[in-house]
């Protein structure tokens, strides 16, 4: 099989209180079907848990899904923790339901892509692949 060096590793986490994981599971499957290794960490994760897992798993990308509206605190916290741990080469992306003006704010602070709820699967895959290519080897 593949030598693996080109296999993208992505951690998918659901942060916040809401208990639905159907959406993220579909995204996880889409990413797997495009050939990625997807580390799925389940529901109700804290930013601390997400960052620690991402570092241990040495992922290229973190994908955080938030439906419960706490994104303006959660994303800055994740970015800050990554920086503290010298792991800010990990690409942070987000998904879920986020109002337009907050999408802009999040992009400004370093969230590389926000994939809202109705983003087509192919766009999700291509976005992740593009971001990893742009970052380059590390």
């Amino acid at each position: 099989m593949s030598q693996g060096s080109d296999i993208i590793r992505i951690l998918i986490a659901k942060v916040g209180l809401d208990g639905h994981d159907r959406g993220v599971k579909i995204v996880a499957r889409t990413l797997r079907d495009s050939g990625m290794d997807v580390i799925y960490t389940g529901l109700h994760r804290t930013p601390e848990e997400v960052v620690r897992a991402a570092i241990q798993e040495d992922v290229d990308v973190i994908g955080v899904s938030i439906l419960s509206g706490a994104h303006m605190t959660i994303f800055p916290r994740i970015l800050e923790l990554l920086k503290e741990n010298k792991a800010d080469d990990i690409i942070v992306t987000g998904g879920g339901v986020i109002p337009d003006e907050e999408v802009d704010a999040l992009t400004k602070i370093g969230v590389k892509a926000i994939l809202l709820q109705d983003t087509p699967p192919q766009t999700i895959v291509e976005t992740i692949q593009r971001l990893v290519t742009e970052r380059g080897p590390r």
Partner: protein
Amino acid sequence: MNNAVPSLELVERVLAADIGGIARMITRAESGLEECRPAMAELYRHTGKAHVVGITGVPGSGKSTLMGKLTAHIRKSGRKVAVVAIDPSSPYSGGAILGDRIRMSELSGDMGIFIRSMATRGSLGGLARATLDAVDVLDAAGFDLVLIETVGVGQDEVDIVQAAHTTVVVSAPGLGDDIQAIKAGVLEIADIHVVSKCDRPDANKTIVDLKAMMTLGLTLSGASGWVVPVIGTSALKMEGVEELVDTIDRHREALESSGELIERQKRIAERRMLKTAEEILRDEFKKHRDGKVSVLIGQMMAHEKNPYAAALDLLAEVRLEGHRQ
């Protein structure tokens, strides 16, 4: 890998137990690229201290959940624990969903614990190709125990015996109606049997059946005189976990005092050398597919060369490659 950190620079970070360094080194080992070989060679010199425990059993038997509890419990004695959890890659896309971490989330705050998920990437037998390389990295980094969760493939995961010092087979009640679900092959590889989910009413039957089957002589207790125990656990009620930790420790002691540990280390080394040789051969075959290999295949199809002679030629080619390094 032009802008990337050279693997040799990661060695020091691994030996200093730096989490990011360990994680990146495992990724490099997983990539299987030549570039990481000298670093892995250096790390290998620092291995041999960790106790490696393999945990296997059919899908859904509760391996990950148990590993979470087990790890938390071992930590109470101050020892550092690493977990390598393996899940299958999709044969269609090559990608994988690695979900074992979900069951171990209570461990996430502890710096003495390291969890890594790994995809099989086409390997059969319940392990990934780079599993033991990852174990080396973790061993060199000073983890006292390394727990490997195999893919739950049911009866095919015998590889773990040639990778671990202690093999734990987890069976859950009600997964197959009778104990026949635990195939003899899997039964025989256990140093310790666990019947999980003992909070369920049908668990006792599974324990009784398992014990009965073992008295029928279906298990080998090995040269150490170790009698394979059956331990009931419940992650829900936190039962049996302490007993399991004690039993793993007792097994280690039995391996050491009987000399069996050295036998197992030898078995692991033999298996690794052979497996690695196979991998090198496969990689070389792929590399020369358009060159030497296709010439040989042409000769075979013209019936000028038989398969045996062609294989010897291929091996000679690989050897030449090896000398060049």
